[in-house]
Each structure stands twice: as structure tokens, then as C-alpha cells.
């Protein structure tokens, strides 16, 4: 089937099986490698993109269900104020270890901040609970989200000193 989908503000045409997950449309058909394959079953969050601003697991989103939704990926998240703030905080707090899950983490965090500019700890836990990190960077992720929101927080780097 031929689909026209709106990715990062541009209409892209792809020829794909209706069941093909958006993740593989992005990675294999459009050569956008920023969105990561983790589990393929919506358990880990590595593949998170935004559909009309909502964090969505692209591995479990068939291309046929995307329709006219506006898709935003890690490659273009710097184009949003929340995304830019999150990326900057991620670097300042030095969140990244192996980095594999971080595109998904950043997409979930920037969706949260776009909706809720001063999230509580409970808000952060709720928004981020579907994003797993095998390196266990969770403490710094929380510190970086708070920094991106301009909220005071202990620097995650000192947590285990």
C-alpha cells in the first residue's frame, strides 16, 4: 500500500504493508535511525515517537493506523521548546551511558514537559514509567527533566557519591 505520512513537518510517501510498524517505516524505509528498536512489543519505550504530541510506541503502531497524524521523531525534537530544553539538560547532567534507550527517554520527557511545564516527582514517574534503561540512568533522567523544567533538584551525578 502507498501511504503519505507527515513526519517532522514533511509529507513523506512510502510503500509499505499495512501492518508494518511505524518504527520500521522510519528506520528501514526512510533511513531515520534515531528511533530505536528495543522489544518490539511496547514494553520498553526505546521506540517512542510523538503522534500529535503524544508519546507513542512506534514498534506497535501499524503504518495503516497513522493516518494524518503529525509524527515527530528524535531527529526533529530540537524544533520544539521542550525538546530543546530536554536535550540541553540531558547533556548538562550527563545522563547518557550506553545511550540506546535515550531517544525514547527524551521523547517521553519532552512530551511530558510540553504538557506539564512543572511536573511533580509523581508526574515524572508516571510519564517515564514505560521507558526502561538497562544502564539504570533513572536518577539522572529525573534530575535532567527537573533541570529542563527550570526546577531545583539535586544533581543526579552526586547521588551515589
Amino acid at each position: 500500500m502507498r501511504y503519505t505520512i507527515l513526519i517532522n513537518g514533511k509529507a513523506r510517501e512510502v510503500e509499505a504493508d499495512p501492518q508494518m510498524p511505524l518504527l520500521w517505516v522510519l528506520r528501514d524505509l526512510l533511513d531515520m535511525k534515531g528511533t530505536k528498536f528495543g522489544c518490539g512489543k511496547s514494553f520498553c519505550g526505546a521506540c517512542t515517537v510523538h503522534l500529535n504530541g503524544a508519546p507513542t510506541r512506534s514498534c506497535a503502531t501499524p503504518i495503516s493506523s497513522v493516518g494524518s497524524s503529525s509524527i515527530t521523531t528524535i531527529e526533529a525534537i530540537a524544533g520544539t521548546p521542550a525538546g530543546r530544553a530536554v536535550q540541553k539538560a540531558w547533556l548538562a547532567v550527563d545522563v547518557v551511558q550506553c545511550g540506546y534507550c535515550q531517544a525514547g527517554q527524551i521523547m517521553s520527557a519532552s512530551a511530558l514537559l510540553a504538557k506539564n511545564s512543572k511536573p511533580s516527582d509523581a508526574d515524572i514517574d508516571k510519564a517515564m514509567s514505560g521507558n526502561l534503561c538497562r544502564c539504570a540512568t533513572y536518577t539522572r533522567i529525573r534530575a535532567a527533566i527537573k533541570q529542563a523544567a527550570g526546577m531545583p533538584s539535586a544533581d543526579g551525578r552526586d547521588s551515589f557519591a
Partner: protein
Amino acid sequence: MIGAKDKSESRRAFLRAGVAVGGGLLLDFSLPGVLHARASASSSPTTLNAFVQISNDGAVTIMSKNPEIGQGIKTMLPMLIAEELDVDWADVRIEQALSEPDKYGAQFAGGSRATPLNWEALRRVGAAGRQMLISAAAQSWSVPVSECGTASGKVVHAPTKRSLSYGRLASKAATLPAPDPAQVPLKDPKNFRIIGKSHPGIDSPLVVTGKPLFGIDVTVPGMLHAVFVKSPVFGGTAVKAKHR
């Protein structure tokens, strides 16, 4: 714990100097700590398998052989060289070595050994490079080496307040013989400017912007995809496979 055995040959740095492609100083050296997994001729300590390059524009490129799996070694090992070379960390570029065990010996991550095994040897590689750049400057100025020091990628002659950047000196230094790394002076740790400071992971800017970085992001011409299928029952074995 590092056993006494590790402290002998495997920790020595072997060094060769030459002219880099495009000009500048190229230091080839052997990374220590590869002898445990592969005791073959290919991993003998005289196999020079890593490099530091100082270009004429002052850029410093350091190769990192160990796999980066989030432990930060791609950032850490070059810090050891940059510290003793006495360059600014911002001027350092890091190049990841390919997976070539015949050339590099064991390329593995595990056991928290990479930093202790390379700690002194890589500092000595940097210190040897620094000595060569000092010698090149001392010759240019016709002053004794002992009157020259370094700071932030420059050789400085304090008595006459002159300085020359490493970039300017690199091609001249490349014509000098490499010193024995075991004989070069190392910094007093209280003068460290890079080691002991927090430096963000070298690849983090790529990660947060979604640039290709991981094995799964690589595409090569004619690449095929394979997946494995798990048996739906415990202990099941494959009877046959259809492939095309």
C-alpha cells in the same frame, strides 16, 4: 585486583613516531592489556595498534580500541593521553577502532580492567608526544629543552615569553625519534587538568539528537536481515530451516 603479572611487559607502551597523512605528527603505539585473551604473535606487544595524531591545525585525534558499552571508556582512555600531552580536552577528537581482533588483540569490555591496565602506559604515550613537541620547539628556538614547558597545546619558553602551538610544531616533531616511553617524566597528579574532572560522554551529543551510532544503525550494500526464532516449547530443537 591487578596481579603482579600484569605489571610487567603487558603494561609497557611501545611507540613509533612518523609523519601523519596530510602532515603533522603521528604516534603509533601498542595498547597494553591484550595479552591475556590472545597469546599469539598477532597480539605481541610490538604490534602497534593505536595512534595519536596531531594535525598542523592543532586538532588532536586519538584512537580508542575498546568497545564502548556505556561504561565511558571511549571517553576515558583518550583522557589519559590528552592529560600528559597537555592539550585542551576541547581540541581532542576520538576515533573508534573497528573490530579487528587480529590487529588489536582482545577488544572486550568487562571486569573494570581497562582503566587500571592502561593507566600508566597511555599516560606515557601522551608524555612521550609532549617531549617530542618540546624538543621540536627547543630546536626551533635554539634553547635548552630544560627551559621549555607546555600549556594547553602549546610549548612555552618562559625566559623569553615565546610560545609555539603543537599544530605548528607537529610536522617538525614527526622527524624526531620517539623517546622511550618508560623514561619520559609524568605529571604530578596534583597538576592534572583533565583526569579527575567530570567530562560528558564523547558520543552524548549524537545520542540526544538521534544520529546513527549503534550496530543496528549501520547499513551496508547488499545487507541481508536475519532473525532468530525461539522454540515455543522448552528444550525444543530445530528440525529444519527454510532459507532463500
